[in-house]
């Protein structure tokens, strides 16, 4: 009798304890992402499973990632941050961290260990480019070209973009100096290891702009990731740069006569940040979600829906086939050995310094 009372009491205490712990996590989350296929892959790979595992939790999407930095800054100034977990590119994560708008993360403490037993910081490795950044995927900005407009010798090098004789017609490039200046210098004969050193000098910048001058009249400048796929599908351009996942869906899902040119693709990272200054309940929920959403299996699952590489090394062996098309996803990943012969990583530190200056130069150059 006495024993059962004790048992009963401890059961009540245990239940109360769970309820208490749960009571310390908010039940509503606002997740911020980019919309489209990418957000859908996140919804399928980890938001839906998370909600299924945690009864009573709801998640609302806000498709504001492209303006996340400005909006978070405004929310912070107004003292009312309504977002809980925000998907941003690495450069924005660094900026948010610099501005004190994002929570600093202790990756080993707050994130799950890899399935292979490695600690989170080892598993993500160099991809943790900021103390606030929780890496999710590796994507790349690279070129796609129209099979029917390039003749019998399809382009094999990024420098074919600069070859107007072999490949006449329009190209599309991002209306942004990042990646374009690097490609211009690589095609002007600069070694990849020296690109940023050369770009630091006035002469090096002039050299890059002079190289771009040679094709300036044949370029359509894009600002949205959907522009290049649209232009390729319409036959407006011969080749153009965009995010590799956009080209994947153009080629594999929409079956357009377009091929990938992986040469000198520029790697970039995308991941989560948690806004600074959330209430303890909301922060606890956000951390709990992120811990689940960036574990080895979840990141590997995301690759079923979109051709972006998982940021954890331990996820790579688990990448399987596309959910609806059934094709093997590994050969479509930017990180696949066959695709990543020549690559470079967006140099975040360098661009944080030079972006203001070079963007002014780039815009003035465009307006000339």
């Amino acid at each position, binding site marked *: 009798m006495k024993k059962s009372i004790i048992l009963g009491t401890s059961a009540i205490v245990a239940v109360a304890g769970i309820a208490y712990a749960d009571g310390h996590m908010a039940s509503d989350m606002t997740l911020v992402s980019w919309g489209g296929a990418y957000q859908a892959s996140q919804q399928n790979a980890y938001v839906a499973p998370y909600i299924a595992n945690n009864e009573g939790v709801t998640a609302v999407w806000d498709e504001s990632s492209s303006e996340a*930095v*400005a909006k978070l*800054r405004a929310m912070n100034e107004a003292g009312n941050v309504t977002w809980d977990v925000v998907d941003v590119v690495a450069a924005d994560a660094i900026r948010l961290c*610099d*501005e004190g708008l994002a929570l600093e993360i202790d990756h080993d403490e707050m994130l799950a260990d890899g399935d292979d037993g490695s600690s989170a910081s080892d598993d993500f490795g160099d991809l943790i480019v900021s103390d606030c950044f929780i890496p999710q995927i590796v994507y790349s900005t690279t070129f796609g070209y129209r099979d029917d407009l390039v003749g019998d010798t399809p382009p094999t090098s990024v420098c074919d973009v600069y070859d107007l004789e072999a490949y006449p017609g329009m190209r599309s490039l991002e209306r942004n100096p990042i990646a374009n200046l690097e490609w211009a210098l690589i095609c002007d004969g600069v070694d990849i290891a020296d690109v940023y050193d050369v770009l630091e000098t006035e002469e090096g910048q002039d050299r890059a702009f002079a190289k771009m001058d040679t094709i300036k009249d044949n370029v*359509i400048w894009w600002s949205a990731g959907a522009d290049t796929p649209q232009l390729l599908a319409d036959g*407006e351009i011969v080749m153009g740069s965009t995010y590799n996942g956009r080209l994947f869906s153009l080629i594999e899902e929409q079956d357009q006569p377009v091929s990938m040119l992986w040469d000198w693709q520029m790697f970039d990272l995308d991941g989560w940040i948690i806004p600074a200054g959330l209430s303890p309940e909301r922060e606890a929920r956000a951390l709990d979600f992120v811990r689940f959403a960036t574990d080895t299996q979840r990141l590997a699952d995301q690759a079923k829906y979109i051709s972006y590489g998982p940021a954890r090394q331990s996820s790579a062996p688990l990448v399987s086939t596309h959910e609806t098309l059934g094709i093997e996803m590994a050969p479509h990943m930017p990180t696949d050995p066959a695709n990543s012969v020549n690559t470079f990583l967006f140099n975040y530190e360098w661009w*944080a310094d030079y972006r*203001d200056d070079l963007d002014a130069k780039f815009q003035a150059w465009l307006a000339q």
Partner: protein
Amino acid sequence: MTDATGPIVAADGRPLKASLSRALRREKLRAFLLILPLLAFVVISFIAPIFDMLFRSVQDDITSRTLPQTVVALNDWDYTGDARPSEQTYEALYFDMFMAAEAKKHTALGSRLNYETTGISSLFRQTGRGLDDVGEDVIEAMEDASAALDDSAFWAGLFLTDDRSAGDKAASARAWASTVSDQALSLPADVYLANAAEAALPNAARQYAAFAMFTHTVDEDVPAEEDPWEAVWIALAQDLTAGELAYDGPEAAELRAVQAAVAGPMADFTFTDAFLAQDDDWGEASVWGTIQTFSSPYTAGYFLTAIDLELTPDGAQAVEDDVAIYITLFWRTLWMSMTITFSCILLGYPIAWLMANLPDRSANLIMILVLLPFWTSLLVRTSAWKVLLQQQGVINDTLVWIGLVGDGSRLALINNATGTIIAMTHILLPFMILPLYSVMKGIPPSYLRAAKSLGATNWTAFWRVYFPQSVPGIGAGSILVFILSIGYYITPEIVGGTKGVFISNRIAYHISSSLNWGLAAALGTILLVVVLALYWAYDRIVGIDNVKLGG
């Protein structure tokens, strides 16, 4: 008839004039109370935020808030000379920067100053990371001299007391630390800065107070249980080497042991060398010149940048040609908006005339056709223009099919100024047609008939009789279209390419991408002033009374 000398009086004997004005005043007050809710709404939700945003174009107190002591120490430094700033300046920078780095404010300042001088962003970020290593030798010597220093209780015993008579010795430290961290810091209740330590070790006491307040207020930890920052150690080393130690409070024996050990390493230590070891750029006049130039709480810098000038330590100078863009964009915005307004008049006038003169049934049909695009999403309409105008688009295909242009020389109708003008003329056309229509509806047709019956030709009757009466509609439509187009953003962004984008696209870039809100505010203010100036000029030339939005 009243007395010729006295005022006219009302029935109650008051002067009629006063009585009348009282009645009118009451009327006005009632009218004012009726619009008060709307007025308050507009002021709070519209005018106040706009002024707050515009105010950012001159506000620039981030440097003086984040590095308050450095800015003061830098006052005497002469940019034009060859000399580096003084050791006191580097010392002030160390303590300011340490506090700022703890509060994570230094990187925001770095981003701000990077708008002016490339490289400061990473300089601040990296220096913030390396500050813990400044004076390593000194700190090691102190640790070797006394193991007690590694115990947080030693520091708390030295600097903190619960003796109320100690008073508020921490006031200046609080003011400084609160400014840098941008939060109201305070010591825990009933904890005071000890008198004796404050008198004998002023630097260390100040730094420890800042540490204790920050730990208590921001980290919400107990200061006495936390190890103090490296800055407190360095400050203590400074105090101990400043001269004879006149102190016999708690921990005095330990302090004397440390004092003996620290003299050697401190003789080799300067803040200047420590910063130069972090990064050579700390010896650059351009970095210090930028800090000095932007150290006042208000700046003309953003406005200068907005008109292709830059604020340098030597005053305002023109920027180099390869980065000058804003004047070009302002001119382009103005002339393209005028072109769009003019095309709207050309296209809208005949349609409005048709609508005003056709029978109601047909007029209503045209009205629906005018309004239908008006109700369609802006993005849909703009994207539709993309499909129509591109080189493989409907218009070019048709022209090639007819044989007007060759397949190899398709017209470039989009991603340039032409694209912007075509798409925006279409989008803004209803704003021209509607006021024109309502004015034309009010012109009696009998006037035209009268003119003709008096012998005027069709053209004379139109030009001398009808057109002058429709001018108020043109005025109203032009003002609407021009002011809307001058601030347009989405359409030029999508169809404008590089030669068809407006100043508003740069404003959007600085708001959402570069986060240079000060510059965005300055550009916005200039745009607002230009619009107001044009409105004023319009009023002087045409007269605003001649504008009618309705018959």
